[in-house]
């Protein structure tokens, strides 16, 4: 800590901001201002330095200067007109990798040079110096990168693509109005170089995929619809008032019984002691579960044994609150045997009336629902089935009703539940958990009533059925069917349906109809076919054939573009209606709609999917955290680590703050789990909230979040290389070239290498010329984060040694730890970072790879964005109103 602080002072004096008193000088604001002064975008320079990443032209000069002299002196004798070993001649090579025919030969050369296979060891006279080898490798690497870009352009690109797996899932949810996970059977998507899963050229289609769509579509439609009369629900009621009465009655009986027994036993005891003992034991054995109920008004406990319940109660009117309660301590649960009564399908509603007793200021309590089954010893499972924990906030004297709605077909169930004669094996248990930070001695939840009902329908037929088959007045089933189909197709296809199209699908219906008992069942098969067409599965589909000039997208297409960008799903009726009236693209309407869309709950999908993909957070699933080093890795820490960057993004988005907050902010978005992880006190509860930082040296921004650090670790220790690559790829959009083939692994069996620290090992590896050129670009960025362990915890020591997180970029810029890195980005690299996030979001919004062709437009956007103070919500609007988004 002291070390860090010292560094800060040093840095600030370098920056000429003066050294002030103890804490005050840590002003990220002033660094930002400093950095802004250096912004080329803000100065309005045509093309900033940062942007000259690559050329589009082959470096033929370099070919002449770097490559050819060596070819002539060291290679040509074996690979030339005299001899052409391996059928390969250097004198016939074209130096133009971008357009020339020899890309494969160049790949070979790159490989043999990197591996030091050529020139061969047994021909010392052709040996080349390490520095020369390095230059050659660099030249080829850069040219290959350019060639890759250039050839990508050759192939062309477009936003026309199928939905991703997650978009397809949301689309079905929105279309059918059901919260189910439909897409689980689809294979996972691959990820683009940018990290995005919605990139058009990656979204392939195959027979397997197509068949899955057909199956999923039909299954989803069947789930949304019902047949016949409303099924009688299974109702389970647990009223503590009732139980207490029962318990008191039981107690009276028991006392009477015991008194009687005691008298009898006394006589028997003298006759046959042993037998009597056995009998007594037998009689005391409980026949069912025991529950203790507290009457808090009377401060008295009643025990009830064998508390049977009924599953067929008709009346679910809640009685008024009772002072008889079940006490649920923190971390404990109430486990209820549902036997095998719960239905297989439909929604289960759970209502719990609960309140807090002994409220503590720094404690929270919430309820969670779980299911479990034990089909034999060691064959068991349990799972959380509530979507999220529901906080309990009312005092126990005025309890609140907390409701859960759980789709029974979507949760793990006991597969044996419908087998007959299997006794205990068929049982399922529902557990009500009290989740709290107070532990078993903290505040309590008093629970006085709960009921479980399923299948639960608010109305019959349910809304999801009526959505597909509204009540039409027509008596004729054909017409009713047709009306249903038109409405469904319009929503699914996001456009009006033409008469010929409709005729064809009604033709299909007529073919199917005789095989089914009713119109609805036949029509569902037709609707499933609608869901397998490209009109549903593909988006941005209205690119016209071969028009030279880019065209403005139609309003209907714009509606889909907007909704897939901000909701990851199909547009709603309001968007479609505006589009049909050709009003959506009007500036004012568009602005209002974007505002509305961002306010909608569905906008959470934007934050979730964009941030997760941009930052590569789903990589956390590939990290197996080493138990020996870090202890058990709790799911709550994993989930919180994943969520923090998303919460941070949401904060910046909803308050329209500067994206520079992603580099460094004076606050963090955390919950109790993360606060504990970060050593921040006074944050209680599982919900995320903004916490202002007192100590601004360790946290703030996205880079030093537990999520980002964990994703870029190996589960055991920090991984500077991964972290470095991550910064370059995700934050600065300057991806390093791919590692050369067959990079030598660091030999961990070498005792000399084992002795080294990680940093020394990396330095040793860098000394290999094949590795140097890349590593000197990557490593320093990662080393700067050495103060953060594999899980992103701050540390000042590693194995008893002080952490050395200082490094030097290849441009000789010194970085002193993460703090130094953040300061450097803020003062020197603002433009690059801002352009990177513009680039990333445009790529996500368009669902395609960006290339040279888009550079100018991205620069223009970045420039405008910078002038508007880098505010995130503005960026969303800027992208939507840009030509990139509005034109084909």
């Amino acid at each position: 800590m002291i070390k860090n602080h010292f560094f800060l002072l040093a840095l600030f004096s370098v920056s000429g901001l003066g050294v002030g008193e103890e804490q005050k000088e840590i002003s990220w604001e002033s660094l930002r201002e400093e950095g802004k002064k250096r912004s080329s975008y803000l100065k309005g320079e045509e093309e900033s330095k940062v942007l000259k990443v690559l050329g589009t032209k082959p470096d033929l000069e370099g070919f002449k200067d770097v490559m050819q002299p060596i070819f002539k002196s060291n290679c040509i004798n074996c690979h030339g007109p005299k001899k052409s070993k391996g059928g390969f001649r250097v004198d016939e090579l074209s130096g133009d990798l971008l357009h020339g025919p020899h890309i494969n030969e160049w790949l070979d050369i790159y490989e043999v040079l990197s591996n030091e296979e050529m020139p061969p060891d047994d021909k010392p006279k052709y040996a080349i110096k390490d520095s020369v080898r390095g230059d050659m490798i660099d030249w080829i690497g850069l040219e290959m990168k350019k060639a890759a870009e250039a050839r990508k352009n050759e192939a062309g690109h477009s936003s026309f693509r199928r939905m991703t797996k997650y978009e397809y899932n949301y689309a079905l949810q929105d279309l059918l109005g059901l919260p189910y996970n439909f897409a689980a059977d689809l294979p996972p998507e691959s990820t683009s170089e940018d990290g995005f899963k919605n990139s058009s050229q990656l979204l392939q289609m195959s027979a397997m995929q197509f068949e899955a769509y057909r199956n999923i579509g039909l299954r989803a439609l069947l789930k949304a619809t019902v047949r016949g009369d409303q099924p009688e629900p299974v109702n389970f009621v647990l009223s503590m008032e009732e139980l207490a009465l029962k318990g008191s009655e039981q107690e009276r009986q028991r006392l009477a019984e015991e008194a009687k027994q005691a008298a009898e036993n006394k006589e028997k005891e003298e006759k046959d002691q042993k037998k009597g003992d056995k009998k007594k034991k037998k009689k005391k054995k409980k026949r069912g579960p025991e529950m203790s109920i507290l009457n808090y008004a009377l401060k008295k406990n009643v025990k009830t044994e064998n508390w049977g319940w009924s599953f067929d109660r008709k009346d679910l009117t809640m009685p008024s609150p009772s002072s008889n309660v079940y006490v649920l301590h923190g971390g404990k649960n109430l486990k209820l045997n549902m036997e095998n009564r719960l239905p297989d399908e439909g929604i289960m509603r759970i209502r719990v009336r609960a309140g807090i007793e002994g409220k503590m200021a720094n404690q929270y309590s919430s309820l969670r629902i779980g299911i479990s089954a034990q089909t034999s010893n060691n064959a068991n499972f349990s799972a959380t089935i509530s979507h999220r924990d529901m906080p309990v906030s009312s005092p126990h004297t005025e309890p609140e009703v907390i409701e859960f709605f759980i789709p029974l077909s979507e949760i793990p169930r006991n597969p044996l539940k419908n087998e007959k004669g299997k006794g205990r094996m068929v049982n399922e248990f529902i557990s009500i958990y009290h989740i709290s930070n107070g532990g078993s001695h903290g505040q309590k939840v008093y629970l006085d009533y709960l009921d479980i009902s399923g299948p639960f329908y608010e109305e019959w037929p349910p809304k999801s059925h009526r959505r597909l088959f509204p009540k039409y007045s027509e008596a004729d089933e054909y017409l009713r069917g047709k009306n249903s189909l038109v409405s469904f197709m319009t929503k699914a296809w996001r456009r009006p349906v033409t008469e010929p199209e409709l005729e064809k699908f009604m033709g299909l219906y007529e073919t199917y109809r005789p095989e089914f008992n009713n119109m609805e069942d036949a029509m569902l098969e037709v609707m499933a076919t609608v869901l397998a067409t490209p009109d549903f599965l593909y988006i941005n589909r209205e690119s016209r054939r071969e028009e030279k000039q880019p065209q403005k997208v139609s309003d209907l297409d714009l509606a889909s573009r907007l909704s897939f960008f901000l909701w990851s799903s199909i547009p709603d009726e309001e968007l479609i209606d505006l589009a049909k009236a050709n009003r959506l693209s009007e500036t004012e309407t568009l602005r209002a709609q974007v505002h509305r869309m961002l306010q909608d709950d569905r906008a959470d999908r934007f934050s979730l999917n964009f941030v997760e993909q941009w930052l590569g957070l789903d990589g956390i699933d590939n990290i197996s955290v080493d138990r020996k080093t870090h202890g058990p890795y709790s799911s709550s820490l994993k989930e919180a680590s994943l969520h923090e960057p998303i919460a941070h993004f949401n904060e910046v988005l909803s308050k329209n703050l500067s994206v520079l907050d992603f580099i460094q902010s004076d606050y963090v978005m955390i919950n109790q789990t993360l606060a504990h992880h970060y050593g921040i006190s006074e944050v209680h509860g599982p919900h995320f909230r903004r916490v202002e930082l007192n100590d601004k040296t360790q946290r703030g921004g996205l880079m030093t979040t537990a999520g980002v650090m964990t994703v870029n670790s190996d589960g055991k220790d920090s991984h500077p290389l991964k972290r470095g690559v991550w910064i370059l790829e995700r934050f600065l959009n300057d991806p390093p070239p791919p590692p050369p083939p067959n990079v030598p692994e660091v030999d961990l069996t070498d005792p000399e290498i084992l002795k080294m620290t990680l940093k020394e090992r990396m330095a040793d590896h860098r000394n290999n010329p094949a590795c140097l050129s890349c590593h000197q670009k990557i490593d320093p960025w990662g080393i700067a984060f050495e103060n953060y362990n594999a899980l992103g915890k701050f540390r000042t020591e590693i194995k008893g040694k002080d952490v050395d997180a200082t490094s030097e970029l290849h441009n000789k810029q010194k970085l002193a730890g993460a703090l130094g890195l953040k300061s450097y980005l803020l003062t020197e690299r603002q433009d690059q970072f801002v352009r990177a996030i513009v680039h990333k979001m445009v790529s996500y919004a368009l669902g395609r790879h960006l290339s040279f062709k888009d550079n100018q437009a991205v620069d223009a956007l970045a420039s405008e964005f910078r002038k508007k103070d880098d505010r995130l919500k503005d960026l969303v609007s800027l992208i939507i109103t840009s030509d990139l988004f509005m034109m084909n």
Partner: protein
Amino acid sequence: MNQKRHHFSRKNFLVGSGLALSLPWLETYAGSQKSQPETPKRFFSVYHPDGVGLPLKKDPAWKDWSWFPRGGEHDFELTKVLDVLEPLRSEITIYSGLSHPAARKVHGHSNADQYLTAAAIGGHGPYKNSISVDQVYAEKVGELTRHASVVLSTNGGTGAPRGTYTSSFNRAGRPIPGMNQPKQIFDSLFMASGKDAVERLARSKSALDLIMDNTRAMKKRLSSHDQRTIEQYLDAVRDTEVKLAKAQKWVDAPAVQVDSKDCHLEASPKEAKQYVQTMYELVYLSFLSDSTRSATYNMGRENGEGPHDLLSKAVGLGGAHGLTHNVKKPNGWKNLGIYNRFQAEEFGRFVQKLKDTPEPNGDGNLLDNTFAMHGSASSSFHLSRNYPIISAGGSNLGFRNGRYLKFGHGNEDNQAGAGIASDKGWRSDAKHTEEPLAHLFVTILQRLGVEVDEFAGYKGGLSRV
């Protein structure tokens, strides 16, 4: 007896739900449909619960009734448990020192689920499985036969998490229900398809026609670049049409002519010997008629509750699972050994039959082109290590038999103390090393012609196999 029908036939894959057969997730079948002179390659796995009898070396029963052979790779000696396989010595391979690493400290009762999948399913809490090796193979060759795979089970159905009744799991990690009634298995394997299947197929065809038509109309409106994108979709639809045409072939196909003389189609596990022999016979007939190339048989779930517990009646003993608990009673090891011997004998009978049957196209015998394995996910008594595995056949696939292959180090005598003195042993730290069984799966898949270099995250095949 709780037996129920687990409906199972190729036509099910068109329904899209209640799949007994996994949907053949086949990307490249169009390329692999060479006109059939190629000899079928087949995979079969038998799973038996409870491991095997492994008395400690100091126990007098060790000499005769310890399951694993003694001696070296070629000069191994079989104990009384496996001596029934002596005549097939040159056709079999016995393995020791193989197990799935993630399960090594999980109770043996929970582990049958991961035997063919190698998934880290753990011992409690949330549960997630992954695809089994037979289904990976079925994805590759399922299209070539009437049934992509055949999944059999003494208990029938899926069972429950960590208490599976089936050995087969689909791509999503969901269990594929096993069929358990011989008569119904026979019918669904070899009888002609019903009206339902015909209708469903016809519906799919008209849907595809309409989709093709609709998509072509859309294609005309697209730029040339986007036309290429939609062309991929059209290819997918065309591939599906080819698939349906094949399904049509099976739907139209008359009943398969097979000889059921060796089947006891009314047998239940009470008639233990007949039942087990019939299950093997059904697999034999499916292979002989090339009705499938991938089959599994889960001979019993872990733990004793269920019809599979009756199978020890075949050797006049009661309660198969109880045998493993009674090893310290008089004749305990012997009784368990006799039951294991019965299991080996029936596997041997099946292997012999494959060997005695020439390949219909004349390419050796059925055994030469079949890899059949027999094993369990615990060596002994709740201990999830050192799976006792026998494989047979596959000489045309590249398997060299007549060997006892020992893997790992430190347990040359195949000791398995867990559960004998106390029941804590299964969660103890292993004092010896073993190899991941998934490497054997990689080798098997590669030799069956599936281009993989890993299984469940384990890269590379198993050396020496």
